[in-house]
Every structure is written in structure tokens, then in C-alpha cells.
């Protein structure tokens, strides 16, 4: 097929460097989805063609590669990024060149852009339900908020702190701790957590520890004998992929909050897992939440393109809001006017097989909230790209563009 007859889709995930560990899988899943779509006859009668580049966990390179994808390769949409900073880095490029980015990872919120669709969880779709669960189900009264020192944990913890204090938790019952990226020596912190948790009040750890640092953290927890029954840890960045590197025997019962778990027993999920394992020719390969986000995002984009009858950016952006696609856990996710989607929230407990057993889930799908209700600067903001054509509409002043005029 000649160039005109294909629709190009950009895949912008790090295949090398520190983030490769997480992002490579997402590249594979995109290739699989595109493959599958082509088997179904492509899109608008054309074949889809994946354009894969490697931004190498290097943030400026993300911007460069995004530019290359959009300007040089003329891709119709890009699926990519993992870290917030990579998203922030490509954002101006997408705005300038007016293209579409699907961002599949849970993040700190506080953003809504015309050109970006956030298919991962906003804080209200992950953090808050998890805390609610711990409080109700486990009777937790004392909280350790441990995170890597960057924006996502900072924001999440800030939201949680405000939320917990609002519920009457006292200052001395909250311990906040930040560590550098790739922190590998957790002896002191784990023992601090143990100390903090020995006050008699039920204590839990809310972990926004990122990436590589999780494995040594959990290994240390296991070694110092911090059991889930004593001090449960609920994590927002630990999924099936991360657990694959750890012996989960001693970690049984620790928790994670996600919008998807591989263990969720639905026909759609079963089919997806099967296909994935067949595609990667590895019956051990696990699936995880950001993968599902890509599945949802991709399906939404396909539907939107079909609805608009074109891959033209503006038309697709208009068409996609309101589109509903089934997710893998049995519900139907919808693209909201704030460019976030509705998602179910699940709390899972680590089991000995390295999977999660769902112990709680929301009854309904939770709509993603771009601007947190618990933060001073953003509680008055609202994103609506349909009626207000604005990502940061201030409900107080009634104007688009934050607080000022």
C-alpha cells in the first residue's frame, strides 16, 4: 500500500533508559491493537500503520520525537508517554501542531488540554477510593504517605492530606516521606514506618513510590517482616508488571488501587489476556492497567474517526467526546467533555501468584476529575471542551483561563 492509503499512528514510548521497564509493554500492546484493527479491515478503508520511535526516557527527546511523528510522519494520533514530565514536554508540540495524544497512565490531574485524552486515572479515580477502603474496611487511623519526590506523589499526597484532615485525622497521625528516584536503600524508612505503626492505632501506608524503587521497597518490607495484616501498603504505581519482579509470598495482602486488574474475571478480559499472550508468544506475560487504558483509548479513537469519517484532528476531537466503549472489566467507559474518561475503581490484594485479588470495587464507573476538589487553586476550575471550549474554566469568575481575567 502506498503512503496515502495508510493511516499512521504514532507510538511514543521509551524503549530504553529507565522507563523502558514500564513503557515497552505499552508499545507492544499498541502494535497488537493496530494489528488487530487491520485484521478487521483497518479504518475508513485504509490500513493502519504504526510508527514506533524511542524517546529513550529522555524528556527533551520526547518533544523532539513528538515533533517528528506529527510533522514528519504525519501521524493521525499518538499514543504515548508515561511520566508526567514526558507529557508536559510534548504538550506544547501537540498544541502547536494540533494533533492528538492519548495518555494512558494514572497521573496527578490538574490538567485538561484540547489535544490530550487522559485514559488513565485521575486522583479521584484511584487515590481517594483506596483511602476510603482502608479506612472503612481495615479501620485505619494513622497514615503514612510515602512517595517518590516528584509531582504526582506530591499532588496526590496533598489531595489525600486535605481529604484525610477533612475527615478529622490529626496532624500527628499523618507521616509524609519522600525519597529520590530509584531509591534503593529502604532500611531506615521501613523501620520508621514500623515505628510509626506501633502506636497502637491501626496504620497503613499509601505508596506513590515510583517505578524501580518499588522492588527494593517491597523486598525490605518483606525482610523486616511488615505484614499486610499489621501495616497494609496500598500502592498506586504497582501493578502486575512490577510484581513480576518480586517474590510475592511475604507480601500477600498488600494492596493496590487500579481501574483494571488482570485477575478480573470477565469474558472481555479473558479474551484480551489470551490474545496478548498469543501476540507476545509468552504465556506468562501479564497485563496491567495502563494497557487497558490504551485499549480503551484506541477503541475510542477508532470509533471517533469512524464517526467523524476522517482523521482530521479537530473533527476527531469533537467526535470523541461522548463516545462509549466497553472496557475490559465489564463496564462501559465514556469520554467526558474534560477529556478524561469514566472508569471503575478496584482495590486488589496481592496474592502469592503475583496477581491481585479484587477485594473491593465501586458500584459505578467514576468520572475522571481534571481539577481536584481538594486543592485550593483548582477547586473552582472545571474543564469542558464541548460547551465551554475550555480546559480551565473558572466557575467563580465565569471566565476561561483560571482565576484572572
Amino acid at each position, binding site marked *: 500500500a502506498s503512503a496515502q492509503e495508510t493511516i499512521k499512528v504514532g507510538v511514543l514510548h521509551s*524503549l*530504553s533508559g529507565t522507563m523502558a521497564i514500564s513503557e515497552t509493554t505499552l508499545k507492544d500492546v499498541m502494535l497488537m491493537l493496530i494489528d488487530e484493527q487491520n485484521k478487521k479491515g483497518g479504518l475508513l478503508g485504509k490500513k493502519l500503520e504504526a510508527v*514506533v*520511535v*524511542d*524517546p*529513550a526516557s*529522555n*524528556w*527533551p*527527546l520526547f*518533544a*523532539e*520525537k513528538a*515533533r*517528528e511523528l*506529527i*510533522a*514528519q510522519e504525519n501521524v493521525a494520533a499518538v499514543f504515548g508517554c508515561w*511520566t*508526567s*514530565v514526558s507529557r*508536559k*514536554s510534548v*504538550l*506544547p*508540540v501537540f498544541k*502547536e501542531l494540533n494533533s492528538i495524544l492519548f495518555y494512558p497512565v494514572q497521573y496527578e490531574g*490538574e*490538567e485538561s488540554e484540547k489535544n490530550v485524552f487522559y485514559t488513565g486515572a485521575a486522583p479521584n479515580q484511584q487515590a481517594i477510593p483506596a483511602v476510603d477502603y482502608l479506612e472503612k474496611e481495615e479501620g485505619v487511623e494513622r497514615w503514612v504517605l510515602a512517595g517518590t*519526590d*516528584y*509531582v504526582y506523589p*506530591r*499532588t496526590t499526597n*496533598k489531595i489525600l492530606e486535605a481529604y484525610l484532615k477533612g475527615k478529622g485525622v490529626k496532624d500527628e497521625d499523618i507521616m509524609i516521606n519522600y525519597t*529520590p*528516584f530509584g531509591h534503593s536503600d529502604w532500611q531506615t524508612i521501613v523501620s520508621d514506618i514500623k515505628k510509626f505503626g506501633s502506636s497502637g492505632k491501626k496504620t497503613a501506608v499509601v505508596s506513590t513510590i515510583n517505578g524501580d524503587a518499588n522492588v527494593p521497597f517491597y523486598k525490605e518490607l518483606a525482610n523486616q517482616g511488615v505484614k499486610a495484616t499489621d501495616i497494609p501498603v496500598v500502592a498506586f504505581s504497582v501493578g502486575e508488571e512490577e510484581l513480576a519482579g518480586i517474590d510475592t509470598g511475604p507480601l500477600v495482602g498488600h494492596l493496590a488501587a487500579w481501574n483494571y486488574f488482570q485477575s478480573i474475571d470477565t469474558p472481555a478480559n479473558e479474551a484480551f489476556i489470551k490474545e496478548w499472550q498469543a501476540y507476545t508468544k509468552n504465556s506468562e506475560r501479564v497485563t496491567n492497567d495502563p494497557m487497558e487504558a490504551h485499549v480503551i483509548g484506541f477503541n475510542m479513537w477508532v470509533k471517533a474517526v469512524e464517526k467523524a469519517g476522517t482523521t482530521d484532528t479537530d473533527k476527531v476531537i469533537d467526535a470523541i467526546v461522548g463516545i462509549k466503549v466497553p472496557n475490559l472489566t465489564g463496564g462501559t467507559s465514556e469520554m467526558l467533555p474534560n477529556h478524561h474518561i469514566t472508569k471503575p475503581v478496584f482495590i486488589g490484594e496481592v496474592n502469592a501468584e503475583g496477581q491481585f485479588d479484587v477485594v473491593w470495587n465501586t458500584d459505578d464507573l467514576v468520572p475522571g476529575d481534571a481539577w481536584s476538589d481538594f*486543592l*485550593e*487553586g*483548582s477547586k473552582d*476550575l472545571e474543564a469542558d471542551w464541548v460547551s465551554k471550549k475550555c*480546559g*480551565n474554566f*473558572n466557575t467563580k469568575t465565569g471566565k476561561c*483561563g*483560571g*482565576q*484572572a*481575567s
Partner: protein
Amino acid sequence: MLTVKLIDRYGAVFIAVLAAAAVIVPFCNLAIEPGSAFHIPDYLLPLIGKYLCFALLAISIDLIWGYCGILSLGHGAFFALGGYAMGMYLMRQIGPRGVYGHPILPDFMVFLNFQDLPWFWLGFDSFLFAMVMVLLVPGVLAFVFGWFAFRSRVTGVYLSIITQAMTFALMLAFFRNDMGFGGNNGLTDFKDILGFSVQAGETRAVLFALSAAALGLGYLLCRYVVTSKLGKVLVAVRDAESRTRFLGYRVENYKLAVFVLSAMLAGLAGALYVPQVGIINPSEFAPANSIEAVIWVAVGGRGTLVGAALGALVVNVGKSWFTGAIPEFWLFALGALFVVVTLFLPKGILGTLQDYLGHPKAAKPAPEPDGAAVAHPAE
């Protein structure tokens, strides 16, 4: 040779190419219709501009490493500081157009609950002030750092490692959200510079031309330094530091002078880099970045200035190209490039070329005397 021409054969070619590029590239981008064979597409302009900034960084490293034997594994820090100074100016230019619409505070400060602008952000709304800071901040850091280190006669790997410690410490510090530099996300989403939109084609073209000019002038400045008697003293210091002292030269002052100059050039490179790539974040301080910059110099040819720039270009073009063309295997290609260059082009690309074409009058990189490994400055 008692005197060396300021501009040698390679320098002349280099300056000519740069001057031509500064004019022709923006012209081909703006004035020639897309579709024409001579059109330079939009995305290439900031890309090449970025390479030019890297080339300037490489030259600044070559000045101290190639000529004075100071292997700085932390030069990325000066580059990043220059970048941050520029980034801060650009952030202040956003004004009330941030997502929260705060009249003064940048977005990240709003949601991290900063009440006022931290003191070190003051003044950055002025372009002039920011430009002074671009040179001053790296310069002062280099001065303070160098003052202590050179006076204490920290040399060789010990110096390399503490420069690395310096950049590493700065990276960790800038990662901290409390520092007020945007933490891991850094500074981004710039709107305009001196009233011109950073995304406008014309602004890009001007930035490009400025980068080319800065590179050219930076080169000439370094060239002036290395061809003067000061340059010879530097080489003497590189060869036999203590012997130079016995001739009456205060080695530490010489080192300090070029170190500061080099840091300021690196800062300038960083400042030009930021508006063209659109983001500055703490990962620019990462030790690996600094090491990589040293590697550009080695690839191009240590002690040749032009070679350093060439090395930066070759490696980065290679990187841009490989990451798109062979995303899964590019590290093999890049790694192999480094190995091949060391094995087959022992003096780097330009050094080897010079040998091949007969050498012009320039100080050559020192092949370390046998056995005198870095670890053993003895003998």
C-alpha cells in the same frame, strides 16, 4: 610553533559553514515553499538548533578537557543552570496565561501552594537580567567550585568525580519540589520570548541564527584563548602541572579562568537550548548527560574544538536518526559507534582527519604517556 593562526583550515571551514547555515537554513525554512526540494521543514529547525547548542557545550568542554586536562563530568550542570535561568524568564513571560491564571505565580507554584514568588525568581521578568544570570549563575558556581578545588590541587579523577557529585547534588536538589523550580516536571509550556511567540516560525529562525552565531563566537573565543600564550600554558598544565608551577605560573588561576569561561559558555548553550526544545527539567543535571557530552568531544577529537562540535553533531544526529529508524536497536548502533571510534579513530574524527591530511598547527590531544593511567599520575 611560536604562533598559531587564529583561524586554521578547519576553523575557516567551520565558521563558513556556520555563517552559511545561520542564513540559509532559516531562509530555506521560511521563504521556500514546502514541497520544494530546498525547503527545510519546520521540525528540523529547532532540531538543528538543538544540535548547535550541544556543539557549543561540547566546545566548552573541549576547552578545559582537551587543552587543560580538566575532565569535568559535571558540565551538564552549567548547561542546565543557564537553561534554568532562561526557563525562569520564559515562565515569567507566561504571566496570567497559566492554567490557574495566577497573575504572577507559575502554575506549578500555584498547585504547590506557594504564596509568593520565591526571592530567587525576582528579576527574571526582565530579559536583560535573565541574560546576565545565564552567564553569571554558571560562572559564579564554577568560580566558587573551581576556587576551592584548584586551590586544594584536586586533580585528575578526583576532580572529575567531585564535578559529578556536584551535578548529581544539583539534580537531586532541583528534583525537590520545595526548591521552587518545578521539581521533576521542570519548566515548560513557554509562551513567548521578548513578546514573540516561541512557537512562531520567525522566532524559531531567529533563535536558530542566534545559536549558530553563539557557536561561532564561542568557537572563536576559545580559539583565541588556545592560540594565545595562555593556551600554551594550559597545555603545559595538562602535560605536567607541577612543572608549570616551578616556572612561576599560578596553575590554579589559569585553571579557574578557563573553567569559569567554559562554564559560562555552557550556560549560554543551555539558555539557547531551552526555548528551542521547550522544556528544562532536572534530568539535564543527570551525570549521564554530562558524561555523554564528554563523549561527544572524544568522538569528535579531543583538543580540536571544531572536532568537539563535530562530535556533538554526529552523535546527536545519529541518536535522532537511530531512535526513529531502529527504535529497538539503536543503542547497539550508538554503542558500536563509540567503540569503533575509539578503536579505529584514536584521535576522534577530526583528529584522525587532521593526521590523514597532514596536521595544521594545533595542539593535539595528549595521548597519555604509557602506563601513566589516570589512577597513577606518578612517573
